[in-house]
């Protein structure tokens, strides 16, 4: 079990009137769940909470989340990830999916 919190600096979300939250993926073997929630308290932070069933990949998580915060305006969000052994490639994929859903009108 790996469990950690980390906040990344990011430009504020560019879609103020979108959904309040968005979910992608499911918690299941080889998969993971990403929950994006709006967080008005910290408009320039992507505040992440990660729980993974597989320990030892914190560096990869930090790199993937750090890139995401740098590549997209995701400030003002809370990201909660529940991972059950998803391949690293699924992580970025689900992040992008949840992020895209968040942009859509409620």
């Amino acid at each position: 079990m790996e469990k950690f919190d980390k906040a990344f600096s990011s430009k504020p979300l560019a879609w103020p009137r979108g959904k309040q939250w968005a979910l992608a993926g499911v918690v299941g073997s080889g998969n993971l769940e990403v929950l994006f929630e709006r967080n008005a308290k910290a408009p320039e932070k992507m505040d992440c909470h990660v729980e993974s069933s597989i320990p030892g990949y914190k560096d990869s998580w930090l790199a993937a989340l750090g890139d995401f915060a740098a590549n997209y305006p995701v400030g003002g969000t809370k990201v909660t990830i529940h991972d059950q052994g998803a391949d690293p490639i699924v992580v970025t994929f689900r992040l992008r999916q949840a992020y895209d859903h968040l942009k859509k009108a409620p």
Partner: protein
Amino acid sequence: MPPAPKDTRRRNKAERMRRVGALAKGKFVSAKSAPEVLKRIIEPGDILCLEGDNQKQADFLANQLATLTKKDLRDIHLVMSCLTLPAHIELFKKGLIRQVDFCYAGPQGQAVAQLLAEGKFPIGAIHTYNEIYARYYVDLTPRVALIAAVQADRKGNLFLAANAEDTPAIVEPTAVSDGIVFAQVNEIVDTLPRIDIPADQVDLIVEAPYPMHLTALFTRDPAAITDVQILMAMIALRGIYQKYEVQSLNHGVGFNTAAIELLLPTYGEQLGLKGKICQYWVANPLPTMIPAIESGWVKGWFGFGGEVGMERYTAARSDIFSTGRDGSFHSNRAMGQLAGHYGVDMFIGATLQIDVNGNSSTVSKKRITGFGGAPNMGCQPMGRRHPTKAWLKAGAESNPGPGSIPGRKLVVQLAETFQSGRVPTFVEELDAQDPAIKKALHGVAPVMIYGDDVTHVVTEEGIANLAACRTNEERRAAIRGVAGYTPVGLKRKKSETNDLRSRGILQLPEDLGVSPSDVSRSLLAAQDIKGLVRWSGGLYDPPAQFVDW
């Protein structure tokens, strides 16, 4: 000085056939006497060809050969496409083989690595398919070839059905050099549906007690295609197929290309690509192409081999598939490889490892596999002269200077950044470069596709256009740019990737108008094997292991 050669080879063949004597009635020998016949026709020092590729096996004859001992059989130079069966490995364990020249050892890869470590696997070279066929005509001509056919008639003509595969490429060089062609057949009949190999080129025939082994290698269940593979398929369709207007191509085995095939009638149709791309195919009859074929995407198809279960479907679609006079599918591996080398716009394939320079390999220290056909197609055909849109467009990107080669074949590596079990696909150095492996191969690392031949690397992160890179440093930066969170990817520099992206050398999904949130399994034209059967109008007969209804 030894005397100049005259016709000793012919007289030697006659002597071998005389030794078979009463064991043969005409050309026909009984299954029981097959091991004794093998003893009498093979001599020490022979080049012996055993038919076997990634699908079809002369398994009865291989099993009989494996019953022989050093007393009967020794100092053999084995030449073959694929080491696939336990019987093949047995020959090495018994120490009967002096040298082996081959292409591929998929299912026996671990056994080969083990034999190599024990010093019991004396390799000449690992070849590509057409490379070894070429040598059958030059310096590796078999004295004896053990082959497999579906049927023989009483004269000794052979019918190969859908899986001709390597047979013609083995039989001709053997037959025209006074070698002995010994065929196992599933059955002997009065009249063949069609003649694939003339009796003239066949010396001995045995009716095997069981039908030859055939593997359903090209069947992929749509149910197992993942969301990430669908994303990659969308990236490839927009960034390569659409951009270059790829008309003629090869797809191999793999879920990534299966995803592309199943997106053609849905996503491809939405993009307006029907009739503009993917009309001519050089590939085994891929069941996952049935929806696209039924939707009118395909004009022509030639196969290296058949695919189990596609017999009735291909016969019923003879406008598209190559068929014999009898109406059933006709394949030819050597000609298919030739077509895939010179005749197509694009080769797109998967691999297990790609290094930072774009070289790829499926060899690891624990599994010595090899190549098969990929390198024959996944390379630049320097003898090509005919232009197509895709060839010219890729050429213009790649060779902007005056006097340079005007075109370029698209050679695309399609791979997820990680294999299952979190094993990174991208590595700084290939396992194939292992000193012990290189030593066994006389200094040549078993690289499947050379980075110099690759035009594009596609991953779930995007596309790296290697052909458009101007320096080796740029090429490495482009590869790191699509290598995700592998150790190779983590070394990328933001300034370099931003520069490559601004020049279109690196394209992320959003640069191609592809969004992960558009990914849905509902885009697959068929959800499972049953869906493929339905699309085929009941003409596709999936092998038992794929049927769960």
